[in-house]
């Protein structure tokens, strides 16, 4: 009697088989970490990020940004506006970083996060804060000079690019925007 097995089951079973990797991967990773100048001080990234997380945009500043965006609001549409403001330098060794404010006018949103090259596109890493009484969401991120792709994620699922910023689609058809931070 012929066995009738779904060929996809065989395919999946095969794909689940282990792969052979170079045995020195861990050593190479640890060497790369050790050689990275950014890793010169233990926990520098941790302290750096935690310190920056305490930076919050004041409601007044948010409202000012919202006013600047008011003309861009279109009924029934989310509008996104990254306010790229090299407002001040970060103290200490991050002196070349620029505080970059990303603002989203999204009254309907329950949650908004920022994803981009600067946070490994981690959906949960950089939430925007909603100012009381309006639909303005914002977050300020210290960015080193360079070019970054980014997008907003609304309610954890809907990716939105910024119609006002240079944009492009990623390899998966998701809208991305681009922000360039000037040199020090």
């Amino acid at each position: 009697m012929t066995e009738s097995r779904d060929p996809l089951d065989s395919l999946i079973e095969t794909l689940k088989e282990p792969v052979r990797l170079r045995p020195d991967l861990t050593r190479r990773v640890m060497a790369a970490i050790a050689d990275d100048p950014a890793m010169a001080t233990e926990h520098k990234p941790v302290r750096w990020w935690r310190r920056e997380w305490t930076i919050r945009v004041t409601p007044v500043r948010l409202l000012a940004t919202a006013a600047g965006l008011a003309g861009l609001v279109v009924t029934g549409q989310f509008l996104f506006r990254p306010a790229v403001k090299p407002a001040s330098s970060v103290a200490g060794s991050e002196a070349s970083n620029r505080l970059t404010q990303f603002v989203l006018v999204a009254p309907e949103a329950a949650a908004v996060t920022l994803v981009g090259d600067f946070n490994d596109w981690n959906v949960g890493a950089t939430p925007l804060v909603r100012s009381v009484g309006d639909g303005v969401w914002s977050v300020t991120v210290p960015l080193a000079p360079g070019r970054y792709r980014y997008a907003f994620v609304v309610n954890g699922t809907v990716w939105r690019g910024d119609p006002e910023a240079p944009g492009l689609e990623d390899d998966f058809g998701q809208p991305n925007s681009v922000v360039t931070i000037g040199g020090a």
Partner: protein
Amino acid sequence: MTAESDGRLLERVRAGDREAYALLVDRYQDRLGRYAVRMLGNQADAEEALQDTFVRAFRSLANCTRPEGFGAWVFGILVNRCRTYAARRIRADGIIVTNDDAVGRAAVPHSEERDAIRDAIGWALGQLPAEQREAFLLKHVEDLSYDSMEAMTGVRAASLRMRVFRAREELRKLLAETVRD
């Protein structure tokens, strides 16, 4: 002896113990490596993406807000690194991925027939658009829920379901072609 949890190891890393990070790399490299090899279809690119992932993860450990979820978090970084490497390959070679060596070479050899099946599977997987291959691997090889996939990829669950469905249909068709040939 009970292995230390991811959360405990992360505590040690954050306290300055880099060797604890090496243990995390050891713990996750096989699973992540399998995904990278299947996704990129190229052993060298997969290993580079994997190393890059672990280095970036170390730099961004402060963003891992749920230490016990380190595995899922670092997997999300790998998914994005693979997207970048796949795109780089498109730009460099004008093709999505090659599947000429990774799946067949990486898997444990059993027999000629098994190798032939593996080659066919590798070829079929390489024919899928990258987004379908990604969704298919995460769902059926990594056994992730659609909720987890959504959190990891930033793609809506409904879209992921459609991608998996289309991938399955396409793979059935492609495998049937290899049988006919």
